[in-house]
């Protein structure tokens, strides 16, 4: 027990990338359609629309997230950024369009297809606030999903929790309560909790908005490492332009339910290719 714990941490981290690749292939559920196009993408959406009542919040958007990429999503308040992430995470049901996760179409024209339940586990999400379950210790927060959903043995959960907390630099806070953690630490634990489900994509909706800049960049650096070292694609909604131009592989601008552009961050900020984008970038620079 003690011996396996001691070695468990590192081994689990090293094994992760490999495991995840096998998870992707093992989880192709029967009955689901395998998509030909968009081959390499871990998440792909085609013609996705989302309405709230009469109001169209996403207008037939197409997008792709490739494995290991750092994708920053920007846009004005109310433009539909959160809704886009919520559709990918399965928290909002689009009325039209198709969503592929890891090459499998799991949502088509507002309906979940076979394989949805397993594929959605490849998507992790962290929220801006109320991220952790406050009545559970850090360890219990991490362990609940693996225990109840993945049905992993307790010894494995324990060693993977240690590895996940190592990843976010909080191994010593395993038994703390969320109320004993700072805002930045809570977000790190939320990232670790998402990692426990062995995701291929991590969705982060303004997870650093409530944090001081140095704390925020610490949290964002963890995500950069996950993308670089573990091949986990990160989709990050943030207004932090410094982070976007430093770490993003791609910046996606959302405006009024449409995806305005997707391009290299250096180009997006220095030489915006449309009037709308220029206006947006200028507004950000003033802030």
């Amino acid at each position, binding site marked *: 027990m003690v011996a396996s714990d001691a070695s468990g941490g590192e081994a689990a981290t090293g094994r992760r990338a490999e495991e995840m690749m096998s998870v992707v292939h093992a989880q192709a559920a029967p009955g689901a359609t395998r998509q030909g196009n968009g081959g390499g993408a871990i998440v792909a959406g085609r013609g996705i629309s989302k309405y709230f009542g009469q109001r169209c919040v996403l207008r037939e958007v197409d997008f792709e997230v490739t494995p290991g990429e750092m994708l920053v999503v920007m846009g004005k308040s109310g433009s539909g950024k959160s809704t886009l992430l919520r559709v990918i995470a399965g*928290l909002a049901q689009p009325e039209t369009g198709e969503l592929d996760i890891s090459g499998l179409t799991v949502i088509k024209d507002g309906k979940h297809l076979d394989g949805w*339940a397993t594929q959605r586990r490849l998507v992790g999400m962290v*929220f801006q*606030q109320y991220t952790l*379950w*406050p009545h559970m210790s850090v360890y219990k927060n991490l362990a609940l999903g693996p225990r*109840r*959903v993945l049905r992993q043995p307790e010894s494995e959960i324990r060693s993977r929790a240690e590895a996940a907390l190592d990843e976010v630099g909080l191994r010593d806070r395993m038994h703390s309560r969320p109320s004993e953690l700072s805002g930045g630490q809570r977000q790190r634990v939320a990232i670790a*909790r998402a990692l426990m489900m062995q995701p291929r994509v991590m969705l982060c909706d303004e997870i650093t908005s409530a944090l001081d800049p140095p704390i925020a960049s610490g949290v964002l650096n963890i995500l950069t490492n996950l993308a670089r070292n573990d091949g986990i694609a990160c989709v990050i909604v943030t207004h932090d332009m410094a982070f976007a131009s430093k770490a993003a592989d791609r910046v996606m601008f959302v405006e009024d339910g449409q995806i305005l552009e997707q391009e290299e961050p250096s180009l997006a900020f220095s030489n915006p290719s449309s009037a709308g984008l220029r206006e947006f970038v200028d507004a950000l620079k003033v802030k």
Partner: protein
Amino acid sequence: MGGLLAYQFDWSIIPPIFPSLLQGLELTLEITVVTIAVSMVVAVPLALARMATVTIIRWPAQLYIEIFRGTPLLVQLIWVYYALPVVLGINLPAFIAVVIALSANLTAFMAEAYRAGFQAVPKEHLEAAQVVGLRRVDQIRFVTVPQALRQQIPVILSLNISLFKDSSLVSTLGVADLTYKGNIESSLLFRPMEIYTTIAAIYFIIAFPATLITSAIERRMLAGQEGQTPNRPRGARSLMLKLLPTHLLFGGFGG
């Protein structure tokens, strides 16, 4: 004027009847504990039904709650005591009948407390559970219920304290609880002042500490909203939560 002052208290009559009063107290406590246990469990599905978006589920739940909140407990007790045997065609022991009536009543109030608690759980907590892939029942069991309970502990405790006191109404149906024993003894001894003062003291000695605990918890909850203040010591509070019977009842939901 001098009625009360002129009255000659004779406390020596109490010790001989004390064992009989304690017997009554035992039944009072039994009724209270069983009723609380039943209500706290049954109120969970009732509260969920009350919040359901489907009308045919929500509506009966709401009707039930309003009926039991909108009629006197004594009437409910009498009604169940006399009507249930007629409706069911079986004769229920008085103990069972009153426990059913009291539970039916407490469940209605408890469900409303739970509903307030459920609604106070931030939607992000449930969404996080959803993204992790927890089934709906697990979301309720591990995320919603424990938090709703903690949040509503003061309300739940005061409901339980009221129930303990209101259980004295069962004496009118001949159930030999503490109050009933008092009625009997005072009709035998013609010493109602001493006997009912003693009985009141017994109820008070049990209810008052529970009230104190309730207010203490309330103060603590107001002082430090969980999740807002980092590095707050937690020893005393979590110990207190562990000592609460209401919490113990739901130990399985703690996750």
